[in-house]
């Protein structure tokens, strides 16, 4: 159980990490973040991916807890 808690904590922090890095050191943000996809900046899509990732994570945690 404890290893599951550690793994889940690390998974959550791993999703957050790029956002901390890009915020604190913008120079480290990859060049493709300046590009556009369907006319929408990649940073905006990155936000969508981030929200989707966190929501998916919590559903995975909940599903694991049930099984």
């Amino acid at each position, binding site marked *: 159980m404890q290893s599951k808690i550690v793994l889940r904590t690390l998974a959550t922090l791993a999703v957050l990490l790029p956002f*901390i890095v890009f915020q604190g050191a913008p120079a480290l*943000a990859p060049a493709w973040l300046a590009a556009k996809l369907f006319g929408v900046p990649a940073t*905006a899509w990155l936000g969508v991916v981030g929200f989707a990732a*966190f929501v998916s994570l919590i559903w995975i*945690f909940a599903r694991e807890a049930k099984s």
Partner: protein
Amino acid sequence: MIPGSILYFLGTVALTLGITVWAAGRNTGRAAFYAASSKIGGFQNGLAITGDFLSAGAVLGLVGLYSVAGADVLLFFMAPMAGFCLLYVLVVGPLRRMGRFTLGDVVGSRLPGRGVRLVLGFCSVTTSLINLVAQLLGAGGLISIVFGLPFNLSVSVVGALMTTYVVFGGMLAATWVQIVKAVLLVSAILYLSLLGIVKAGGLASLYGTAESMLARGPSAFSFGALHMDMYSAVSLAVGVIFGIMGLPHLLIRFFTVPDESTARRSLVIATTLMGLIMGAIFFVISPATVAFLTNAPDIRTNSGSFIGGSNMVTLHLARVLGGDVLLGVMGAIAFSTILAGVAGLTVAVSSSTSHDIVAALRGKGLSEKTELLVFRIAAFTVSAAAVGLAILFQRENIAFLIVAGFAVAASTTGPLLLLSIYWPKLTAEGAIAAGIVGLVASVGLIIASPVFWTKILGFSTPLYPSEYPGLISVPLAFATAWIVSTLTRPTTS
């Protein structure tokens, strides 16, 4: 005054007072007042948690920040999402198993004694009071804009309403007010997003217009506008994550459901809804404010800033996209957001006062009748104090106060909860010392930060260079707990 808006506002007040009257008839005792008799369903509690988090700070403040800094505010959106995932993993289950009414119950179940409960109660009250003042500032600004009423009167009206909800309706009224508000808010945000996309002629066109409006052009959608260094970014994330795991008004929501499984389910629902709404705010509403408001007439003061400040850009967007009718509706929803938020915060402060602080000071538990009387007196006192503080600090930045509330929770209640759940060697002395050190460190660093030290106190150089104290105050609280607990005898086996 904005035409028709008085009807929407009065409708909101009537609806929330109606809920209070309904709840008052069902409140029969302490369990009802503190935790809605633990009979709220998972989906309803999920909505209430969503409503609690999507307060004036998130809905009004973050959009305002985006209008200034562009997409560089992404961490402000993502850190809370990580906080909620970690709340699920680390806290929500044990919290519901160990607690009944307050965070003092949770820590007290591990570490009996007056000192721990007193310190935790005091930290909870401090955190919630800071948040309460922030919400009242938002309410004062909103009512001043819509009705043209003086700030002091606006804040006093909201104070009177929140006292009424809590004194008569307790947690049941605060929860249902929050649920109704959450439904209205989710619907309004989705509608406003859709309207923004349609009026702009599609997403690509929306972003294209936003780019052309900003002097920085496409770089507005890259990182770096806030000039935040790595220390501040990590400190912000630490403060938000541990803050979410320690915010009393948010955590006591898990006592309103029957069991652990429902508590977990409600958090999954809340996180999903928050992902949807914060996603819509970041992806559509925020760039829409840039696209539609940059050159819009009649929304700026002579100095060029938005009327009502950057916190009010969501309302200006509603007016530009949907006219005075949508502005009135959005204003009423924003008002209900604040009313629901302050009601929940007042419950958190009052229950901590009556159930933890007063009981600890007396040295023995109070009778149910006396405790409820103390709860009501606390609600009156806290409301009056919060209104007084809001009037005193009416020129302060709402976002700064919200960050301060998070920082205090992250450095006090958050570490104490985590340690009491996961570290069997924590002693009462260690918990008391950690609470005091965390509180002093977080408040001290907030005072020494650039916003307070230079902008408010007027000194030339801040004593602490960052606006986010989490990276120092949170580890300091954990370290204090470890050192003092190691030096003192364990109080429980």
